[in-house]
């Protein structure tokens, strides 16, 4: 189980090179809906990190963060990338 600080430092988006803390900061500082706010984080149209970002955006909207959930989704994305690289 990771601590909150460890989760905040986890890279949530490779394309935009943002960690969880930076993504939260971007979401907190925009009024745009998820689809547009996501592009501010990712700086691209890809969706590899969408699941984690969408969950984070929802948490931001409701003002309550579940860092274990975010850690799980980030780790799942990394595992997915590893598996795909291995030809899953």
């Amino acid at each position: 189980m990771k601590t909150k600080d460890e989760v905040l430092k986890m890279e949530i988006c490779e394309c935009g090179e943002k960690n969880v803390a930076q993504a939260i900061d971007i979401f907190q500082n925009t009024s745009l809906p998820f689809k547009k706010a996501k592009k501010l984080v990712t700086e691209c149209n890809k969706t590899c990190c969408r699941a984690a970002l969408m969950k984070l955006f929802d948490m931001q909207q409701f003002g309550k963060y579940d860092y274990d959930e975010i850690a799980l989704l980030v780790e799942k994305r990394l595992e997915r990338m590893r598996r795909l690289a291995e030809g899953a």
Partner: protein
Amino acid sequence: MSDLAWTKLREWLLEHKAIDTSIDSPNMIKRLDLSGRSLQKLHESFSLLTELVALNLSNNLLSMLPDSMKKLTTLSNLNIRRNHFTLLPEVLTSLHLRALNISGNQIEDVSILTQCKDLRVLDLSVNVITSMDGCINKENELRVLNLSYNYLNDVNELFSKLHSIERLDLSGNLLTSIPHTAKAMETLAELKISDNQIESIDAALFSLPLEIIDLSSNEITALDLKGLEDLETITLDFNPLDKLNTSDDFAPYLESFSCDGCGLKSFLPLVSTELKTLCYASNDISSIPEDIGIYEQLNELDIDNNTIVDLPDSMANLTQLKTLYIDGNPLSESAKKVINILQPEICDIHMKRGITIERAKEEDLTQMAELLSVLFAIEQDFTIDYDKQLSGITKLYHSKGKELLVAKYEGEVVGMVTMQRLISSAEGDYIGQIEDLVVKEEYRKMGVGSRLLNKMRAIAQAYGYKRIQLAADVDNENALQFYTRRGFHKTHLKIYHYNT
């Protein structure tokens, strides 16, 4: 039943705050929430809870369930989401579950589910499942199935067995096609299949009674949209669409169409006059067709980041348009005039960029006191008195257990909210009292209030407050709707003032 066994189980449940002291018999327990208790195993006498109907064991450290659970013959709803299961517990086959949530584990093989014929709702998302072949019984009753974020690359057999399915989520797998067996899903109303590698879609899909379909982030290059008489929402975002056509019979009651980032050069001729949301953002569209005026119900139009210069006069017919995203286009002056006539409530080119949300500083207090007069002008119970407001906000600033946030634009305070720490005897802990949420008139409809509130809620969570609460003027409809939309619920309490 052994009294000693029940006594020990009761102590265990009390220790985990899953029951209160009024429970003095296992038969009284129908529902149990043991989520987030860091459990590695269940109590050895757990099977005494023979009247249990719903059991939530999510967010624990479980990797197995005891076989004795098969005595829980009335259990119909089981949640073991986000645990450490690598294998499905064998005991599941002995239960008569209607709803099962196994999301967020490390399960690859779910073949024993073929023995769970009573399941209506099944969530297998975020696991490592590579195949569903032979995992669903032919006589299943599944209505809702979530298989998102697994490693499925073939759903041919799965589709052929989902004859009662209503909602299906296959997002984030490795699928390359929607096969012909989709025709078996005769009751399917919602299909989410984004984030796959789909290149081909069998025509059978267009004969289904779908109301919602999400095909975004696939590899679809050509698509002929037809049929789908019941369709209300379709999302095709981020597909490299070279060819996209629609037939006259396509989705006559469509309400939402989204084609973001698909390389389109023009709008599609959608026949539905029920459209409420239309998105063609980030394409190569240079003009908007004159017949956009037929969408009189249109509420949101997203056409940002295209190459649009002019807007047709028919857009004046879009009287219901509340939200317009149009930034990132080389708009002409006449186009900007059309936007000014339309006057959507939310328009990205009118939004101020660079509004920050930050903790108030002492030098902000005078501006905050001025801003409070805007609020008190609305609230009937208060009168505007700058000196009192400055005195109050200054005292609050210097008090303990307070938080003051401001929204700033180019150094000017354009919005604010405060929170004071209270102790609730009902909650037995600290709670936050939110007050003074106000945004200057010219900065409204830009989400500033939401941002202030969201940030304050995050602060309240960080402090561990059990609840946040606020009061709003009963005649301030905008405020009441604002708070309701953001998850606040109205209480039965009324506020009384007594001036000392």
